[in-house]
Each structure stands twice: as structure tokens, then as C-alpha cells.
């Protein structure tokens, strides 16, 4: 007897159809799974066997062959437990498919030995892919239901146990979970306890960071230890604009595939802030692995990737950042597959100007020999620095400021300005697929950014004098556009351009 049910395999963020077939015949007893299963899928036999017996179904002593079609696609992970169990129960006539004529259901889920259903990762991407292929509905673990119901036009049938899933299948569905209320989910953003006004002084740096966040520009902060670089970076989430619907879905999709979505959170509502340690490997940073998984650049998509002690990172990891910083995505190629993850990050890097940290500091002498200073800064290659829009010096706070310096504005005030600037950008960028000025390519730039006459003249002069590369020139215009957006100016004026240029001049100690 034959039984079959649809399921779905994930490769990166894309799903592909997998048909799970079970054949049960009277012959010497065996349970085999074919169709390029990996170890986790092979082990599925033991979970399925135990779950079926413990759910009070029969597990007859016959030859069971499970085929996962297409046979040339590698199948990974425990999400095929449920479809295998259902195909087996269909094949042995213990459940009848009640979907006749209404379009089939697909199933995913990991089984526990007691027949309970455990959540799987990547539900959102799976559900989206099923809907694109026109599958009517999805049987899945109850813990994944809220995430799957973010997808419109797909019926979602949550089940806590194998027995419940069987009941759904027999009924051809049953009661579908209600569609998710995106606005309510997006509205429930938890408050942050770190505020920009925690930091005394540093007004110029704060202004520059406001510009950076408004346009999602990359930033490099350089300064002596204790000046507040890390504190400033940690407060960036508090001034970042709220995620839009489309952005929240994109971020959730990646975090779900990486298995980072907490069980009770169906939607990521805050911009990611990723701060990996500097010993991270290159695949850890840009993504990789035998089955490609998203790296930190993708986990920080539409948020901040904060790299503290920037020159201490491995060279291979740093240079691996170049392509994602330019393209906003990472493509990982393997023998059988090639996977693309989005990676539109705002890179925030922090470093000391030299190994001891005090080069250029007014209070303390630098104790580094000249060659060590050169060695340190030379770890950052020209092409990498060229991709960083704003370079800031974060000096030590002068004693007077530290004692009674202004606390400056609260994060909410800054954030309001940033959000207005972002709205203007979104309006201008409508239809380009970009969400912020930093994501504009050269063509968008020429079409959408208007410089007035003075600004054009200034840019030409700067191009000559500062020997900017063409790419650097585009970056200056992008930042100037963000400054203009913050002032609600329809054109880029020379003052905007001048401020933008001031953010990319090399610091005193660089040659």
C-alpha cells in the first residue's frame, strides 16, 4: 500500500517541493529512507517508530520504504518526521486523506518519542514558498503556527501532537489558525533601557551617528580606550527607525532559518544589533558551512553589525566583508547548491588609533613604535575603508565636559528626526528596492539626487584635491543626501556636501 504527502525542503531562504512517499509491503521487516537523506533524516526512523507506537497507532512488522522525491535533492534536518509518519499512516490505512478535491495539504515538523510535535526552523520561508507554489494549507507544530500565519493566502493547521495532525489530515484541514495581525505585532516593541543621553558630551560624534543611522551608512569610530565608542555603538538601536512591515518580514525570514527566533516571538520587531567577538571565523561572519547558513552580515540585515576592535579581526574575515558591503547580499556556492542571503547591514566599526590606544591623545603619550602603528592600521585595506562612508574620531571627553557637560538629547528626540529623514528617503526610493540612501546604486544616485550649482562645484573641487575614487565620490553624495533629508531640503546644498566631506577625510595619523 502506498501513501504520500507534500512537504518542503529549505535551501538558504528558498524552499523546494519534496513529495514524501511511503510504501508498506508484507516482506522481511525493514524501515528504510531513500532520496539523499542526511543523518538527521535517517534518525527520523527511530523517532517516527516511537511516536507512532506511543500515539496508539499500529506499527506493523512489514517492509517500509520511504522515498523523498526528487531523489537528487539533499534532504536535511528533522522537519520530515511528521510527513514521514503521516505517509506511513496513510499507507497502512490508519488515516484517510480527507482533502479530496480541495487541494492537498503539506506537512512539516519534528517528532518527539512521545508523539509530540517540536518546532522547526525556517517556517516563514517554508510557508512563503508553499504559498508561491499554490499549496492550499500547511500542517505544522503548534509552536510554529504564529510565524507561518504571517503568510497571507495559506491555511495554517497547528498541531501539538501527531494525533492532532492526523485528525487535521482526516478532516482535510479542520480549524485553521487565524491570520497574524502584523500591525499589532509591529506595535509591541519592547522599550530599550540604553539611551543616548547616558553619554556625556561627544556632541559631534552623536551628530555624525545620527546622520549614519538616518541613511544606514557605514561608520568607523577611532579613539583611545574609554572614550565611549562601545557605549555609543550600543545605543544605536535606540535611535534607529522602527522596522517597516516588509523589513520585519525580511529580518524574520533570516533569523528563523538560522534558528534564532525565540519560541514565543513570531516576528522580529526590532532592528538587529549584532556584535560578534573579533575571533570570529570568516564563514561565521559572512556565512557558510557545508549547508550554507547565514553569517553575522546576514543576521544583521537591515540592522547594525558592530565590530569592536576592528583591526583585530582576521584578515580573511575583514576582506570577506567587501562584497556584501557593496552588493547588500552574500552568495555562498557549494558543489550542489548556491545560496544567496541578503546582507544590507549598517557596519559600525570601532578601533583604537594604535595598539596602545593613545596615539593622538592629548592626555597620554603613545608608547607604540612607529612600525607597530603602521602595521596596525595597515590591516585595514584601502578597498575596505573605501566602503565606509563616515570616519569619526572619538576623542577622550575633556574633564570639564565629564563633570558638567550637557547630556544632550534623549534617544526619542533623535529617533523622531531619523524617522522623518527615513520617510523622505523611502518616498524618493519607491520602486528601487532600496530602503535607505546607503543602498542606492550609482544609477539611482544620478537619477534621484539633485545637487545645486554650488554643491556641484564643490564636489568637482573635492574630487580633484582629495583624489577621491569614483566610488568614494558616490559615497560622499549619498551621505550628503542623508544630511539634506535630515534638514528636509529638496536639493543637496554645498553645506550638506561639506559636512559629508568632513566625515571622510583621513585622520591625522593615517598616511
Amino acid at each position, binding site marked *: 500500500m502506498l501513501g504520500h504527502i507534500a512537504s518542503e525542503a529549505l535551501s538558504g531562504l528558498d524552499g523546494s517541493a519534496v513529495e514524501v512517499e511511503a510504501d508498506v509491503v*508484507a*516482506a*522481511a*521487516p*525493514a524501515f*528504510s529512507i531513500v532520496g539523499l537523506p542526511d543523518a538527521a533524516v535517517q534518525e527520523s526512523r527511530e523517532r517516527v517508530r516511537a511516536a507512532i507506537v506511543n500515539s496508539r497507532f499500529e506499527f*506493523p*512488522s*512489514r*517492509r517500509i520504504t520511504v522515498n523523498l522525491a526528487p531523489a537528487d535533492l539533499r534532504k536535511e534536518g528533522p522537519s520530515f518526521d511528521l510527513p514521514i509518519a503521516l505517509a506511513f499512516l496513510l499507507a497502512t490505512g490508519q488515516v484517510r486523506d480527507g482533502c479530496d478535491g480541495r487541494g492537498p495539504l503539506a506537512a512539516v515538523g519534528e517528532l518527539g518519542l512521545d508523539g509530540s510535535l517540536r518546532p522547526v526552523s525556517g517556517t516563514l520561508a517554508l510557508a512563503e514558498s508553499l504559498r508561491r507554489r499554490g499549496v492550499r494549507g500547511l500542517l505544522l507544530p503548534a509552536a510554529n503556527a504564529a510565524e507561518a500565519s504571517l503568510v497571507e493566502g495559506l491555511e495554517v493547521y497547528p498541531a501539538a501532537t501527531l494525533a492532532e495532525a492526523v485528525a487535521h489530515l482526516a478532516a482535510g484541514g479542520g480549524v485553521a489558525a487565524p491570520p497574524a495581525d502584523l500591525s499589532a505585532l509591529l506595535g509591541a516593541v519592547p522599550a530599550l533601557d540604553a539611551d543616548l543621553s547616558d553619554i556625556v558630551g561627544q556632541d559631534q560624534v552623536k551628530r555624525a551617528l545620527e546622520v549614519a543611522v538616518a541613511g544606514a551608512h557605514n561608520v568607523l569610530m577611532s579613539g583611545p580606550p574609554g572614550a565611549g565608542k562601545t557605549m555609543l555603538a550600543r545605543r544605536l538601536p535606540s535611535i534607529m527607525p522602527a522596522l517597516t512591515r516588509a523589513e520585519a518580514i525580511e529580518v524574520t525570514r533570516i533569523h528563523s532559518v538560522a534558528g534564532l527566533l525565540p519560541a514565543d516571538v513570531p516576528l522580529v520587531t526590532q532592528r538587529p544589533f549584532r556584535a560578534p567577538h573579533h575571533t570570529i571565523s570568516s564563514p561565521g561572519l559572512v556565512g557558510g558551512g557545508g549547508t550554507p547558513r547565514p553569517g553575522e552580515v546576514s543576521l544583521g540585515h537591515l540592522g547594525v553589525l558592530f565590530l569592536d576592535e576592528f583591526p583585530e579581526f582576521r584578515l580573511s574575515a575583514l576582506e570577506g566583508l567587501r562584497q556584501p558591503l557593496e552588493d547588500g547580499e552574500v552568495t555562498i556556492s557549494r558543489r550542489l547548491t548556491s545560496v544567496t542571503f541578503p546582507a544590507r547591514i549598517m557596519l559600525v566599526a570601532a578601533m583604537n588609533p594604535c595598539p596602545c590606544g593613545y596615539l593622538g591623545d592629548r592626555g597620554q603619550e603613545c608608547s607604540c613604535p612607529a612600525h607597530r602603528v603602521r602595521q596596525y592600521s595597515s590591516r585595514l585595506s584601502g578597498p575596505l575603508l573605501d566602503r565606509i562612508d563616515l570616519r569619526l574620531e572619538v576623542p577622550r571627553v575633556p574633564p570639564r565636559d565629564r563633570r558638567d557637560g550637557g547630556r544632550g538629547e534623549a534617544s526619542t528626540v533623535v529617533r523622531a528626526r531619523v524617522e522623518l529623514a527615513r520617510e523622505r528617503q523611502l518616498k524618493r526610493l519607491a520602486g528601487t528596492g532600496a530602503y535607505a540612501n546607503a543602498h542606492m546604486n550609482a544609477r539611482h544616485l544620478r537619477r534621484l539626487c539633485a545637487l545645486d550649482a554650488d554643491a556641484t562645484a564643490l564636489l568637482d573641487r573635492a574630487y580633484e584635491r582629495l583624489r577621491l575614487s569614483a566610488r568614494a565620490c558616490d559615497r560622499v553624495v549619498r551621505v550628503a543626501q542623508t544630511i539634506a533629508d535630515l534638514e528636509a531640503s529638496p536639493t543637496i546644498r554645498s553645506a550638506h556636501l561639506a559636512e559629508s566631506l568632513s566625515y571622510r577625510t583621513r585622520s591625522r595619523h593615517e598616511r
Partner: protein
Amino acid sequence: MNARQRFGRAAEEAAAHHLTRTGWRLLGRNVRIGRGELDIVARRGPVLAFIEVKGRRTTTCGAPEDAVGPSKRRQVARLAELWLAARPWALRGVTDVRFDVIAVDAGANPIRVRHLPAAFTLDG
């Protein structure tokens, strides 16, 4: 026949007696296939079972059923396939095919016979 063989025969005798008493029809005993041997092939209703008999005088070396190791299981499974291949009609009316173990505990008085249905499968 030495003492060990005699003991094995006695265990099989006890197992066969137990099977017939519980409604099984014995299709074959000590079926030789090439170099190997299937202890008992039996049928009851829709169930066809290949039964390995394991006897023990004492339980100091563990329970008798634990003595059916992986290589023995593979051997029984392979012999069963050969037995079935030569007799396609044997599957008529059969829904379940099983590998059973009958443990004969000769140290107990009276002798204890336990039938372990579906003790193993081809995939372990």
C-alpha cells in the same frame, strides 16, 4: 552429538512445543540454507515469523535474548530473504513478516520459555 548440541536441541524442542501450544503452525525446523540455518519458521494467521531460539543454562552471562547480536541478526535476515525468494507462495495471506526470538531459560525450574515478537528488523 555433543552436550552443547544436545542442549541446543532441547531448547529448540521446548520452543517448538511452546509455539504449537500458542497456536502457531510450524513451517520448518532447522532449515538449512547454504551454510546457515533458520531455527524455526512458523505461521499464525496473517503473521509469518522467522524465529531464532536461544537457550541459556544460567543467566550469569546475561539474558538469552541478548545473545542475538548484530551479526546473528544480519544472518537470520539474509537467510529469511533467501527462504522467501525460494517460496513466493509463502507470503500468500500474510500481512506481517517478523523476526522473533524465543528465549529458553534452562536454569529456571521449571524451564522458562519467553517469546519476544518482532525482536529485530533488517535495519536493526
